[in-house]
């Protein structure tokens, strides 16, 4: 009897031990940690995560990763496309389990916060000096902390443009060649469009707190000359009276019924415009690509202009230059190989990256001087609004801020309160208090970039 009990106890202990070992092993079911790192021929396997972008973007990543794998016997990349709405939780869970990908896509506003938190490996020494020298200075700065480089920039794109229907403008008695330059002009145009086309929503922009948080960074600077937190992240500036005009403008749009009470699509999606449900829409340059590919019949009736400025001065920022880069996880077992893969994909052969801009119809810009020069040699007529972006938008926009999301969300919530018809001054007072709390709770001043 004692022997049987010992056997049972032993079996249970073994089962428990097996569970513990399993819990400490691979993050991929049915695969051990060792298997993940080694390919069939002993090649190093790099896990790469890519945000899910448009079909054209995704196709470029797939094609270039396959080309990389074909060109390298000793290093192979395993690409995973992650939907944007699942990215944060998937990444956090992977980081917690120690199974974060070796390299992944990062937007510029993420790079320095992640670098300061020790999440990214420095890659400055692995990528050749030529690669770094080829970058525009402002994008080099966007990935540099204390003289060290933490990601390699791939592209940038204006996040705020005004798309409008020329045919509807004409029918409403508006000049399609003279788009609104101030928000008062835009409101007047929207009112005229509403009167002429009662079945079409006159205007759409970001209309919920989260989207308002990041899509209005440029307008926040437009309104006051600064963001709602001081440059050293020590003081909230949300109570600046200059923001009243911005919130009043949004409130007027809602009160006058010039925007739908519920947005017809997310900020980044131009489908309602392509489907003829909207007369004007604020969105980023990526929407051009979507409209060119999905709604070619609508292109002749569409126009693109800079998003209006509060006072009509279009040399002031009204949006940001967002964009994407690739970085290496600080806990990667193969940081050097991962950085070399980034170099191959983004920093070496101009043609590799040039294909990306061709595939996306030249609706985005390259931070690499040599690639930008190569684009200038191409026939870019597929994007009829490239000149508008190049000459009237890009030079005046600001880069995305790198402070904590809580600060952006506090201001975005104030904007949403304005849209919901709540008291504007109170909304800004609350935002000011929330930003002040975030500064204290998160010790932001100590985490401010150098």
């Amino acid at each position, binding site marked *: 009897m004692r022997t049987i009990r010992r056997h049972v*106890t032993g079996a*249970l202990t073994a089962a428990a031990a097996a*569970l513990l070992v399993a819990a400490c092993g691979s993050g991929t079911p049915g695969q051990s940690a060792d298997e993940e790192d080694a390919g069939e021929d002993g090649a190093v396997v790099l896990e790469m995560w890519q945000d899910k972008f448009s079909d054209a973007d995704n196709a470029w990543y797939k094609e270039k990763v396959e080309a990389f794998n074909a060109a390298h016997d000793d290093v192979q990349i395993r690409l995973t496309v992650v939907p944007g709405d699942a990215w*944060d939780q998937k990444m956090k869970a992977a980081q917690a389990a120690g199974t974060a990908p070796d390299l992944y896509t990062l937007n510029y506003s993420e790079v320095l*916060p992640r670098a300061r938190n020790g999440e990214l490996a420095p890659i400055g020494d692995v990528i050749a000096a030529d690669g770094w020298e080829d970058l525009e200075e402002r994008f080099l700065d966007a990935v540099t902390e204390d003289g060290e480089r933490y990601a390699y920039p791939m592209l940038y794109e204006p996040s705020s443009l005004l798309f409008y229907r020329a045919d509807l403008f004409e029918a409403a008695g508006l000049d399609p060649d003279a788009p609104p330059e101030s928000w008062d002009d835009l409101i007047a145009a929207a009112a005229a469009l509403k009167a002429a086309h009662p079945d079409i929503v006159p205007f759409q922009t970001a209309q*919920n707190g989260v989207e308002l948080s990041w899509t209005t960074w440029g307008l926040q600077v437009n309104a006051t000359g600064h963001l709602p937190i001081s440059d050293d992240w020590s003081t909230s500036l949300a109570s600046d009276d200059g923001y009243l005009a911005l919130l009043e403008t949004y409130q007027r749009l809602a009160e006058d019924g010039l925007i739908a009470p*519920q947005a017809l699509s997310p900020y980044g999606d131009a489908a309602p415009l392509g489907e003829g449900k909207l007369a004007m829409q604020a969105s980023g340059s990526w929407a051009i690509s979507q409209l060119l590919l999905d709604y070619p019949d609508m292109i002749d009736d569409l126009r693109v202009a800079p998003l209006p400025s509060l006072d009509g001065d279009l040399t002031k920022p009204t949006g940001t230059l967002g964009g994407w880069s690739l970085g290496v996880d*600080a806990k990667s077992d193969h940081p050097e190989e991962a950085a070399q893969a980034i170099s191959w994909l983004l920093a070496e052969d101009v043609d590799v990256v040039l294909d990306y801009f061709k595939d996306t119809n030249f609706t985005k810009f390259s931070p690499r001087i040599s690639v930008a020069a190569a684009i200038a040699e191409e026939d870019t007529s597929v994007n009829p609004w490239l000149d508008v972006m190049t000459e009237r938008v890009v030079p005046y926009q600001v880069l995305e801020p790198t402070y904590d999301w809580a600060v952006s969300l506090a201001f975005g919530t104030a904007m*949403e309160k304005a849209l*919901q018809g709540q008291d504007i001054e109170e909304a800004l007072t609350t935002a000011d208090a929330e930003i002040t709390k975030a500064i204290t709770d998160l010790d932001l001043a100590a985490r401010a970039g150098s």
Partner: protein
Amino acid sequence: MTVPTASLPPGAAVGSERRDSRRRPPSRKDNKLAFLMLAPLVILLGIFVIWPMVYSAYLSFFDWSFYQESRFVGWKNFSNVLTDPQFRSSIVRSLVFALMVVPAILVISFLFASLVKAVGARLGTALKVAIYIPTVISGVITSVIFLLIYQYSGGVLNWFVGLFGMEPQAWIADVRTALPAIAAPAVWLGLGISALIMLAGLLDIPQSYYEAAELEGANWFQRTFYITIPLLKNIILYLLIAGFTAAIQQFELPLIMTNGGPLDSTLLPNLYLFNHFRTDTFVGTSIAGAFLLFIVLGSISAVIFRLLNSDKAVDG
């Protein structure tokens, strides 16, 4: 079945206790076997519940980011959560949400179970299958279905209210309607299992009680309020606690349908924690918040128990 003490001979209960006290204590061998049989469950519980809870409690006192040396911060994470108006209002909102969802589920389930009990077996089976279908549909699918229903442009509900001359409404983008709008699918999702449990409780009540009451001239309301509901007390208690706990922890519907908006009007505690988990650089806040939510849920369950007092049913 509870045997009334009065029906026993005098001294029987005392005698029974005396006999119990004379009984030999269980042998050590039996204890060991019991522990052995329990061991797998205890080990699994230890690995997947107890240890994570203990470790989480420990971590809630640290700034923890997976990449930096953890920094002990004492009660800071707890005080950050408790002083965050967003967290406090999410708790209050979850109670309002539960008050919208749970009573509605209980009332509809009761009416439905009464209907099923009253109709023939074949129709009853068809009704049971129909009411159970939402239970096997995932919350994600339900969210998408109701999103289509609530859509401002081209939504089914706006088409329907348009038939009565009403203007289209922004059901999930208006602070006044957003919470009720996500409560409706929560009721729909919770109805199936509640109705079947309620039906099981109804069928468990002896028919003789109703026959006796009818002979005494009791009408439907009297039979319902003096027989049915008192005898369903434990069922109602279970459904109340399970319903409140589930409603307060509702996560999928606000995440997919509204992402907590507009203006946090659908931000429930779990979504608050999830948002902090996915966006905060340090995860101490979400862990501390989860512990505080645990306390809230435990307190609510205790209050419901206290108010309703779970009794063993006095049945036939």
